[in-house]
């Protein structure tokens, strides 16, 4: 298996990327505003459901069951999809998926394709691959179109242009669509996008889509959206190519009952998506004449083998964990340097790369647990974050640099002290004496060396009190003993 393509470019680590993003006050303002709005809507519609916790439980159980028996359900899906006239392709990695999709497009001699938002295609960098081979991909999802015309990258996998405000969108449209007179109301912007896209829906004969669910029992594919652009892409072209991660399969059609309640409420704060498309193979005289489904592995199978981390693949990509995450609120999605940002991105991205890339991401969390609380399929993200940190530490300890690194030495020393109270107590006394060089006249520590400088860059620390609790207690016991 060839390594995923994204490995070729080394990912900037999270703290450095975050530092750049934190300096962009416009992005921070946009992200904060947008996530607050979505989060408030989500909380309102979730509160309407008395059985929300049961729905979470059911969703979690269905997804966990599907992953336990993924081989069975994928084979069942393939058989049923094929029987209905669809063609199923299996792609081990990004390179295979890109070449399958390009091959299909070239077979139909298409020079342009329309796309409905697919994060899987972002994951494999499909657009760049198509452009390099003379095929122009046109994004039809409004936010993806903004990102594409702005020569930008998605910062959120449900609302990819969440980091842009209306004025910025207007500027992009004015420039790229050559509409200098364009107004800035939502209606103006939507009308411009509609005019720009409508002609393309009618002319272009090949579409590329993603999907939210694959139903094994019927061989159906389900895609939910808010704009109707998806419906156009799924129904108007002659050829439809859907690229979907292997983990997206669910056993039964009936299972959609759960997810079509939890997904829209979690993702956009809607009770139901305005457009819910479910299609099964091809139908004479209705919709595309050819339907191809590319099942993408690209690093997913190894995640299944890890009992602790397997739950990562239960994700239904609602992005509620991004909207609620206090880290994401500050940095936005670009700091993760990954298609999958936020808490789920912090666990998914490094695993998709066999922990060889994105290794700073599991540390990009204060473990506050807000992500787990909102997750509609109950992925215990903090638990997986810690598990992945454990893997990283263990790997680093196998190298000389890791062994002799400050973090490892510090942690080993602390573990040595905590093993025995007399050692710990001695260290406390040493600290009380040794701190003197760091304590300012006001009695506070205002600057610390090495990694501890991270603390004092914005925070003071009160000097250690002269007496620890245990020493106070011992003195008290002694006094009481004498008094008796």
């Amino acid at each position, binding site marked *: 298996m060839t390594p995923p393509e994204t490995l070729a470019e080394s990912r900037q680590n999270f703290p450095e990327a975050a530092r750049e993003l934190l300096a962009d006050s416009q992005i921070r303002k946009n992200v904060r505003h947008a996530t607050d709005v979505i989060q408030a809507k989500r909380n309102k519609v979730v509160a309407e459901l008395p059985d929300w916790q049961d729905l979470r439980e059911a969703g979690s159980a269905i997804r966990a069951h599907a992953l336990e028996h993924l081989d069975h359900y994928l084979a069942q899906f393939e058989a049923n999809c094929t029987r209905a006239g669809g063609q199923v392709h299996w792609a081990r990695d990004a390179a295979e998926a890109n070449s399958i999709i390009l091959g299909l497009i070239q077979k139909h001699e298409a020079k342009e394709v329309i796309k409905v938002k697919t994060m899987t295609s972002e994951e494999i960098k499909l657009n760049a691959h198509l452009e390099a081979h003379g095929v122009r991909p046109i994004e039809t999802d409004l936010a993806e179109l903004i990102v594409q015309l702005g020569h930008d990258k998605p910062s959120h996998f449900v609302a990819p242009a969440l980091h842009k405000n209306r004025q910025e969108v207007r500027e992009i449209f004015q420039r790229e669509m050559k509409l200098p007179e364009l107004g800035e109301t939502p209606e103006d912007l939507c009308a411009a996008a509609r005019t720009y896209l409508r002609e393309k829906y009618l002319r272009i004969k090949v579409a590329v889509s993603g999907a939210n669910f694959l139903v094994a029992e019927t061989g159906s594919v389900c895609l939910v959206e808010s704009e109707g652009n998806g419906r156009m892409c799924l129904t108007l072209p002659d050829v439809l190519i859907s690229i979907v991660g292997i983990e997206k399969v669910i056993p039964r059609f009936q299972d959609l009952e759960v997810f079509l309640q939890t997904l829209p409420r979690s993702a956009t704060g809607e009770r139901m998506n305005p457009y819910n498309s479910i299609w099964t193979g091809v139908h004479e005289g209705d919709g595309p004449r050819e339907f191809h489904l590319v099942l993408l592995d690209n690093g997913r199978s190894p995640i299944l083998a890890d009992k602790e981390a397997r739950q990562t693949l239960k994700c239904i990509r609602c992005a509620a964990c991004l909207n609620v995450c206090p880290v994401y609120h500050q940095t936005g999605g670009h700091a993760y340097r990954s298609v999958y940002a936020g808490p789920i991105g912090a666990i998914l991205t490094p695993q998709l790369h066999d922990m060889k890339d994105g290794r700073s991401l599991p540390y990009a969390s204060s*473990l506050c647990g807000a992500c787990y609380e909102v997750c509609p399929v109950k992925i215990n993200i903090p638990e997986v974050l*810690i598990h992945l940190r454990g893997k990283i530490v263990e790997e680093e300890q196998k190298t000389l640099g890791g062994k002799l690194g400050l973090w490892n030495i510090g942690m080993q020393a602390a573990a040595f002290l*905590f093993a025995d*109270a007399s050692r710990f107590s001695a260290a406390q006394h040493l600290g009380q004496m040794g701190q003197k060089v760091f304590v300012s006249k006001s009695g506070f520590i205002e600057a610390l060396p090495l990694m501890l400088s991270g603390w004092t860059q914005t925070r003071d620390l*009160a000097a250690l009190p002269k007496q*620890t609790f245990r020493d106070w207690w011992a003195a008290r016991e002694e006094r009481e003993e004498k008094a008796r």
Partner: protein
Amino acid sequence: MRVSLFITCYNDTLFPGTGKAVVRVLERLGHSIEFRPEQTCCGQMHWNTGYLREAVPIIRHFVEVFRDAETIVIPSSSCVSMMRDHYLKAAEMVGDAKLAADVAALLPRVWEFSEFLAKKLGVEDVGATYAHRVTYHTSCHSQRSLHLNDIPLRLLRKVRGLQLVPIENPQECCGFGGTFSIKNADVSSAMLADKVRCVLNTGAEVCTAVDNSCLMHLFGSMHRQRTFTRTVHIAEILASTAEAEPWDERFPVDLPVSVGGTR
């Protein structure tokens, strides 16, 4: 009741006043306190930073020290959540069935301080007086792991003279996260700035919580900015009486315990 106090490593070293306040409150309520000097740490820092194997001996040490304790009270929700959420997992990780069984037997006797007062003792009014404008910071572990809900607020509402003021965005993390505050110091500081703004906007003199870790983080920034707002652990507020406040030098904790106590 005989209460065994697990003070936690950082309270022991940095916030001895919180331990004294816990002792004072529980003795005032008629309970006897023991302190097992062999205790050290719960292992949270190692575990959460990914030093999973290194955390196991610390966990084992805790279990050994408190194995036969009647009741264990801990003035730190994050340490309690370490035990409830991760101790069994740690035992399973190293395949130690005996440790797992010991942990399972011990956990029902482990209480966070405010939880112990409200749930185990059924007390809300601990006889405290604290005439200050106070806001309550909801720590992440207290709400999402321990589900303390309004327990700390109920305790605070019963304190004489205390004016409790609500805070904006109570559910959002202060950005401490243990080693996160160092490994991702910039993001942590940005989160802290938001939280400090919420604290200052309340106009409170004092910000309290059930965790000194968050309070240390908040105070670190508020002191750097030379603000007037202080942070005080909830135990210190509940220990306060009209005569003495624990963050005040006048707090007579080193006097014989009979002062203000009913032991």
